[in-house]
């Protein structure tokens, strides 16, 4: 089992900011738009280097998406940025018509996704955005796991022609992936190979899955952990290959159980390889105020929950094996 450690904690949104700063220097077609949240999106470095390519849109997200589409039509690569709540549900129809249906090369890059937004509470804690964006034809949906991966994804999507929803977050979390990694859209990342259960995790839950893997190893359970940073298109091959080996799966995400990664994995397995699956996620409820750590604990989005779901998944697998 590969051991993962970290020397520092950073927020994934800062990874986005670092990616933008790099793009500012290397890609003259990249423009950044923001709806009055420049500091939260860590755009300062990009703006300092390329002020003429930053377009402040004010608190008017619907217009920002349309403006981004207009810039994309004209050949620019617009990165439209705001909180995940305001960059998905609030502007669903604008994204649908002017971006996705029109195949406009707009990158919707959103921070403060999920419960870990923390104290601001449920009004801002979007937990349905992956579901909305997954449902939208033509949309690529990416949810990277740490600072380095977010930076790499931010840079990689500039070279991809088409609409992208890139989702990241507010809190500082362990930095455990390589600084010089190559980000491949749609290609799952094997965190740890194993044979007893497949854990498919995305975003902040990848680190929790690694922690769960260590606990499970002590119990004698050999977990395979895969980072599904691209929710759509889903790396079906990686998932089917893993489950063929392990025979059961657990999904983990900072999102509703409805419509997110777990749903995507279940849909795939239901069609191609029916398998016991347990899901870690928020179960049909809104969030609330609290620290990120308190919220992840209260809503069961942590290593302990993953371990418990792994036990349940393995039990179901064994039940089926015994029946056969």
């Amino acid at each position, binding site marked *: 089992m590969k051991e993962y450690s970290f020397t520092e904690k950073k927020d994934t949104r800062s990874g986005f900011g670092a990616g933008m700063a790099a793009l500012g220097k290397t890609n003259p077609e990249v423009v950044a738009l923001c709806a009055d949240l420049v500091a939260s999106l860590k755009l300062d470095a990009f703006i300092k280097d390329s002020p003429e390519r930053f377009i402040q849109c004010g608190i008017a997200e619907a217009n920002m998406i*349309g403006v981004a589409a207009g*810039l994309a039509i*004209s*050949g620019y690569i617009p990165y439209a940025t705001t909180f995940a709540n305001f960059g998905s549900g609030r502007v669903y129809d604008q994204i649908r018509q002017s971006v996705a*249906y029109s195949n406009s090369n707009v990158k919707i890059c959103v921070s403060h996704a999920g419960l870990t937004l923390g104290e601001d509470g449920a009004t801002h804690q979007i937990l349905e955005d992956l579901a909305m964006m997954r449902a939208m034809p033509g949309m690529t949906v990416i949810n990277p796991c740490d600072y380095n991966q977010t930076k790499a994804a931010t840079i990689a999507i500039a070279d991809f022609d088409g609409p992208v929803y890139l989702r990241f977050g507010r809190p500082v979390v362990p930095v455990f992936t390589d600084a010089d990694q190559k980000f491949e859209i749609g290609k799952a990342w094997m965190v740890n190979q194993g044979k007893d259960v497949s854990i498919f995790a995305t975003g902040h839950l990848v680190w929790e899955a690694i922690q769960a893997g260590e606990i499970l190893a002590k119990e004698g359970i050999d977990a395979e952990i895969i980072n599904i940073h691209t929710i759509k298109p889903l790396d079906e091959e990686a998932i089917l290959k893993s489950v063929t080996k392990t025979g059961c799966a657990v999904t983990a995400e900072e999102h509703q159980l409805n419509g997110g990664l777990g749903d995507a994995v279940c849909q795939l397995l239901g069609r191609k390889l029916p398998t016991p699956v347990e899901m870690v996620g928020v179960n049909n409820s809104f969030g609330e105020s609290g620290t990120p750590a308190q919220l992840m604990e209260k809503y069961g989005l942590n290593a302990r929950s993953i371990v418990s779901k792994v036990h349940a998944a393995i039990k179901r697998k064994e039940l089926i094996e015994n029946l056969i």
Partner: protein
Amino acid sequence: MELAQLKNTASQIRRDIVRMVHACQSGHPGGSLGCADLVVALYFHEMTINEEKGDGGYLKFSRAGQNEDLFFLSNGHISPLFYSVLAHRGYFAPAELSTFRKINSRLQGHPATHEHLPGIRIASGSLGQGLSVASGAAKAKKLRGDNCNVYVLMGDGEQQEGQVWEAAQFASHYQLDNLIAIIDWNKQQIDGPTEKVMSNKDLKAKYEAFGWATIDLENGNDMQLTLDALAKAKQLKGQNKPIMILMKSEMGYGVDYMMGTHKWHGTAPNDEQLKTALLQLEETVGDY
């Protein structure tokens, strides 16, 4: 194109509109007829577009439209007009107009890029989005040092959408004087007179308060007045303000029984009504 030719073209396009809507028994003739003079004036007189021809002798179309004037149709339901103008301007064969709203057609109910119809740069239909898109394109032209203009047509009922006013403040804030917007102020919408459904009040004062320059076009169904308004709009460039043409028009213009009512917003004529309409609209360029 000269005035007489423009009028002839508009007459032919009105025939196309009525025939297209009749053929599929759906679509929106009222606003299409009302805006025909304006969109003909734009495409056949005012706008600079790439005249180069490509495959099949049709105009070469680039979605980016660098060094071209761009037109965005925000009130996408008047697609019959848009399609007929694009076809007669040379983007595709007028014969294709017969596929409007039918299965496997590039001429979708509302304009779309999805089927790659030349001349369309963005999907529209869900109202209120076109001014934002046009503002983004106008901003892009400024960034690239491209001196051409961006035109966008909206409905007056569409002014009820909040996003329109987000875009109005954006265009003004960024001093997009290469953006020329037109409101089809026909005072009708689906549920009745706009004044009754949700009053627009004083659109001129509203846009001026948002920092726009405004032009009154007292009769958007008078070709000469329309040309004058468009010429005046261009002259206002350099004042660092986006430009709004408030175009008073008659919904259903050219077909007597469709005029002065909201009832032909989204209704197709039957066989008898088609005959009556075509008697009032001269065939000039030739029916598709």
